[in-house]
């Protein structure tokens, strides 16, 4: 392929670079070719290209379907439906409650995993991350067997007058159970990526470990903490299996949006689609907010030093 003119924007750019570099070399009338050949772009084998395009369509088409079939005109009205609003309120309560539980339990856990070495750490860490891969229904069953009326802690909880099953608290617990690993992973990564010199210096300034954690560690891992919180919240918001198993499906009590959507699909599919659309929008917002942090929770602090000698 000898420099076909006007072929492909990106390839053209590369050609200019190569041409400029080689410009002084060939003298006029020498045997060198008139134009420097452009390095051909990597050919994508059809056997790889085809499945990847199908895969892309597989992910995109359902979303397109949702957008195309959405009853756009009646979406606001359907979202204003009392049943939907109740489920929305419950979902918000439940997801933020689950996030609160995850934060209270997960941040200290993440600190422990990132900063303290103890025997059996790898095993405990694997256990905390287990809900990532565990079928949520199994999580719900496990929660029942631990905190349900006939569960391990059931009689004790009952004697204290606490009922978790089929209650909002139970729905929060179910959400926290599946959301916790997301929070722990993000925050642990952020703490592990934090240079210890800040915490050490704080200690030499007379700050005890708890004060160091609250005044130095937490503010410095704020980006990772925010990313983890967003992930955990979104996971709890969408939780279905563990919630329905452990907290049930009581309208006005534990019936959150995902459960409501599932039931509505039977007798009011358009409302189900409208609610799905809303949840999709929320997911997109979370994803956009996480952009850049999604895969790199350990990114360095965004402080760009500006040497300012003039101010000295």
């Amino acid at each position, binding site marked *: 392929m000898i420099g076909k003119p006007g072929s492909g924007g990106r390839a053209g750019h590369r050609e200019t670079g190569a041409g400029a570099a080689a410009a002084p070399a060939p003298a006029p009338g020498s045997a060198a070719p008139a134009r420097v050949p452009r390095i051909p772009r990597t050919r994508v084998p059809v056997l790889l290209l085809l499945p990847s395009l199908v895969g892309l369509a597989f992910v995109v088409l359902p979303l397109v379907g949702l957008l195309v079939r959405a009853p756009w005109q009646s979406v606001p009205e359907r979202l204003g439906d009392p049943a939907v609003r109740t489920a929305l309120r419950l979902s918000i309560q439940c997801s933020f409650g689950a996030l609160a539980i995850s934060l209270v339990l997960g941040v200290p856990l993440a600190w422990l995993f990132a900063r303290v070495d103890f025997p059996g750490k790898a095993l405990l860490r694997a256990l905390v991350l287990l809900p990532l891969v565990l079928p949520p229904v199994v999580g719900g069953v496990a929660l029942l067997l631990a905190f349900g009326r006939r569960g391990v802690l059931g009689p004790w909880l009952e004697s204290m007058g606490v009922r978790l099953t089929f209650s909002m608290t139970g729905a929060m617990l179910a959400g926290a159970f599946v959301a916790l690993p997301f929070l722990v992973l993000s925050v642990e990564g952020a703490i592990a990526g934090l240079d210890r010199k800040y915490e050490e210096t704080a200690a030499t*300034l007379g700050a005890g470990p708890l004060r160091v954690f609250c005044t130095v560690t937490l503010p410095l891992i704020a980006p990772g903490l925010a990313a983890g919180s967003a992930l955990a919240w979104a996971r709890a918001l969408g939780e279905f299996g563990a919630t329905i198993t452990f907290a049930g499906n009581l309208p006005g009590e534990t019936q959150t949006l995902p459960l409501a959507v599932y039931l509505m699909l039977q007798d009011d599919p358009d409302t189900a689609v409208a609610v799905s659309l809303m949840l999709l929008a929320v997911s997109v917002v979370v994803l956009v907010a996480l952009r850049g942090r999604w895969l790199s929770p350990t990114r360095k602090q965004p402080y760009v030093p500006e040497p300012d000698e003039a101010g000295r």
Partner: protein
Amino acid sequence: MTAALQARTEGLITAELAVSAGEVVAVVGPNGAGKSTLLRALAGLPGPARAAVAIDGRDVGTLPPHLRRIGYVPQDGALFPHLTAARNVAYGLRGRGLSRAGARESAREWLDRLGLAGLAGRRPGQLSGGQQQRVALARALAPEPRLLLLDEPLAALDVETRASVRHTLRAHLGPYDGACLIVTHDPVDALSLADRMLVVESGTVVQDASPAEVTRAPRSAWVARMLGLNAYTGVSGPDGVHLADGRVIASADDVPAGPVLVTVHPDHVTLHREPPAGSERNVWAGTVAEVTGTGTRLRITVRPSAGPGPGPGAGPDLVAEVTAQAAAELALGEGLPVWAGVKATAVRLTAL
């Protein structure tokens, strides 16, 4: 009188220290000698060495860092990036139980004292390297620690800033009444800031003496070279000192047979274009490897040759300091064959 600091370290670095109140001790040595490790051990921070430490007679060796009442400035200052300069300085004061307002007030006073007035509201990212070091020093000094540990406070700065921060350090370490240790790999910093020098090499203390004593009789080739001297290690015998490269150096100093450090001041090295016929006992042929200027004096690096006459190099370089005029008379230039002479009385020997 009990020393302000008494310590013994084990691990990567073994050292015994006694520092009196108000004394500034410079810990000098090449990279990897264990200087920072020593400070971390004294601060109670995790690292490859442990220390038994008593501050003002109080045993703090088993206490965590936050109960030791120390000030510690790590290599780049480690200012908290999310706090302003004033709140950085106030951090340790709050820990000492001052009210928020009191801590803020005192922090501003400290910033003023270190010439940082007007920068109180800036975050570390908006400060220059020198300003950051000053804030870090203010933050460490503000809570009035009984032991101050500074790890390479000048290393990250450019030459000009370095001089001004060094001046700040001198001004504030003078009145400081606790024990102070400064780690540096620059003997010049040590000479200008410290009352005492602790020379550390590969995990052991090779010399613990006043800066004057260290300059007069260095006990480590590294510190001697950093001070601008020619320094070689060798073994002294009845016929002189045998260097590792086979050369034998005659000295008027009388030391017991055994390992010695040989130092020669560059002023005492004479250069000749012909083999000298004078009274110099030590004469080496070589070639001029480098000519560098310092004011009216020139430093000439002579690379000794293996054979009797000028030829290919062998053994460590010898540096001579001559006046620019003398260099011009000899027409010294790089690559020129020369003879270097040193009188036996100018060769200092220190038993190691």
